[in-house]
């Protein structure tokens, strides 16, 4: 290397270092301001309606009738929340949202267990064992993931009626599980596909048992993806309206249907504070779940099966 090269390289290095220092020192420039403005507007877009819903639910009806929807409540009261939970009328029953809440929980638990167990085992078999027609099966699953519920609604009603679960909690849970199967299976299959072949070979030589390998080796490696699927499925099932209203029976409708019936009254006055409180009550459970395990959710999406 000549003397000239050396000085040039040194100068280059200094320039790079200076740039780095400049970039770090400058906190605000045109680009970051633009980003900040955009983010603020996004935040407002979501926060303002939320603010209105929250404050309205804490007001009395008299205050609401004054029409100042952005004002803070003069008298803070949880009366509307209490009424929505315990006494509000949905159709002809006036037992509040708690009926729907417990129905939703009773739908959620079996549908979670059913769909996740089935999808997990199917995904494991498709990814790690030699299954005949696995490619075709995967393609069909992929297609099924794009079929909207509305298209197969009538046949599904007929099927569930033949099975004797139409109009029951189990009926709603089963339909949820079936509808979730394609996507969940694909998610699990893609996750398990990344498990090194050699680990699977070692397990096959050690044990060879489909279930033993699943329970002892694969299941403990699935923590991350389980969290992801759990959140996905809880949100899906809880926020569903269509399946609930179609397949739920008279007294077995989920919280969302309960809420809709409560809000769309045709007689009397609209009690906005109760409506808002009811909407918030319905939205809270998935939020709580998300805040509790959201940290793992992100980790689960980004992490693979193998660490270290």
């Amino acid at each position: 290397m000549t003397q000239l090269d050396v000085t040039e390289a040194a100068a280059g290095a200094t320039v790079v270092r200076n740039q780095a220092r400049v970039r770090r020192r400058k906190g605000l420039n045109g680009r970051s301001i633009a980003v900040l403005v955009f983010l603020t507007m996004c935040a407002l877009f979501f926060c303002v309606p939320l603010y209105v819903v929250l404050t309205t639910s804490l007001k009395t009806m008299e205050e609401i009738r004054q029409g100042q929807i952005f004002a803070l409540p003069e008298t803070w009261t949880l009366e509307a929340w209490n009424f929505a939970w315990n006494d509000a009328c949905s159709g002809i029953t006036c037992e509040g949202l708690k009926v729907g809440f417990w129905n939703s929980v009773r739908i959620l638990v079996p549908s979670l267990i059913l769909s996740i167990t089935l999808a997990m085992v199917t995904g494991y078999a498709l990814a790690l064992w030699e299954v005949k027609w696995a490619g075709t099966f995967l393609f069909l699953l992929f297609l099924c993931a794009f079929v909207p519920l509305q298209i197969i609604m009538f046949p599904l009603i007929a099927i569930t009626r033949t099975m004797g679960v139409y109009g029951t909690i189990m009926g709603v849970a089963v339909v949820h599980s079936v509808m979730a199967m394609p996507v969940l299976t694909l998610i699990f299959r893609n996750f398990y596909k990344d498990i090194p072949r050699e680990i699977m070979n070692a397990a096959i030589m050690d044990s060879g048992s489909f279930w033993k390998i699943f329970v002892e080796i694969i299941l403990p490696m699935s923590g991350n993806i389980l969290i992801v699927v759990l959140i996905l499925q809880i949100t899906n099932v809880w926020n569903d309206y269509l399946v609930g209203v179609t397949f739920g029976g008279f007294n077995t409708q989920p919280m969302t249907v309960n809420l809709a019936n409560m809000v769309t009254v045709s007689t009397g006055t609209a009690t906005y504070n109760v409506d808002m409180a009811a909407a918030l009550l319905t939205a809270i459970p998935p939020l709580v779940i998300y805040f509790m395990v959201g940290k793992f959710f992100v980790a689960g999406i980004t992490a693979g099966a193998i660490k270290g």
Partner: protein
Amino acid sequence: MPRVSFEHIVKSYGGLNILEDLNLSVDHGEFLVLLGPSGCGKTTLLNLLAGLTDVTDGRIMIGERDVTELDPKDRGLAMVFQSYALYPTKSVRGNLKFGLSAAKLPREEVARRVDWAAKLLQIEPLMDRRPSQLSGGQRQRVAIGRALVKHADVLLFDEPLSNLDAKLRTEMRLEIMRLHDELNPTVVYVTHDQIEAMTMATRIAVMNGGVIQQFGTPDEVYETPANLFVAGFIGAPAMNLKKGHIAKANGGVAGVFETGERIVLDDYAFARAPEEGAPVVIGLRPEHFGAPNAPIGDAAGRFELPLQHTERTGSDATGYLHWGDGLLSHRVEPGDAARLRPGEKISVAFPRGKANLFDAASGERL
């Protein structure tokens, strides 16, 4: 006694034959190394033996048992993988135990075997750690332990040392040899590293293109390579392979190189009498050459060529001489190598009875 044999093995993937009518058998307690470049079919052969892939045709025997149709776990094998393949969510102890509890052994027996392996491999302090908390060398010990606890008749190794650094590799090589001496299982070991093959094997099967090129002891494979592929593949630095022809004169046989140099071949053990003028490839091992510019007593040939450069690899050094349009490599003492200057004309002698001869057309040994 378990004797592993492959009989007329055919393996094809979608019409493409990877292995074609392959036969190989190895006795109990042998250390068989399958050696060859990437894609030569050695790992395929190992996976067939392990049962991880199915043979298209042929039969695999372990002892008196035909295992061709058996599940991997029923074949009485244990395997060590290149990437260790430890179960990431199990502790070291859990890893060792998994194969045993799957075999439904009594609890005390499992504990006894795990302790025995831990002691043998000196991994006792690591027993409660996870694989992610271990170094590469430790992981490989655990992987070997997991194979040993099964007391399998046949141990399979799939390039177990290629993920380790050079120093660890030497250590683990000695370790595996010690285990083989102590426990004396039958070992089938796949590698592309000829040093591993030469040091550990009792028998080497050199493979290329799905065909076993030569099957023999390390000495046989090294001293009398069966064809040009084996001659070129085994040995570092590689054997000098130069084209020439046979010349007969005064009742003796000599090889004449294309560049005109002659080499006496009177001591060569020809499989059949050579013909005058037959085209051949003559192979000269670099380490057989005498010291530069020093006469040796029984020289078969002498080469005076300009030096291109020398290369020192620690305990050894190699000189490269310009020869025709190629190079001639020869071993030199490291002390001498420092004295040689590039461009300098150097005279090296090749002793009698050391040359290798191959048919130029077929590549087979003459």
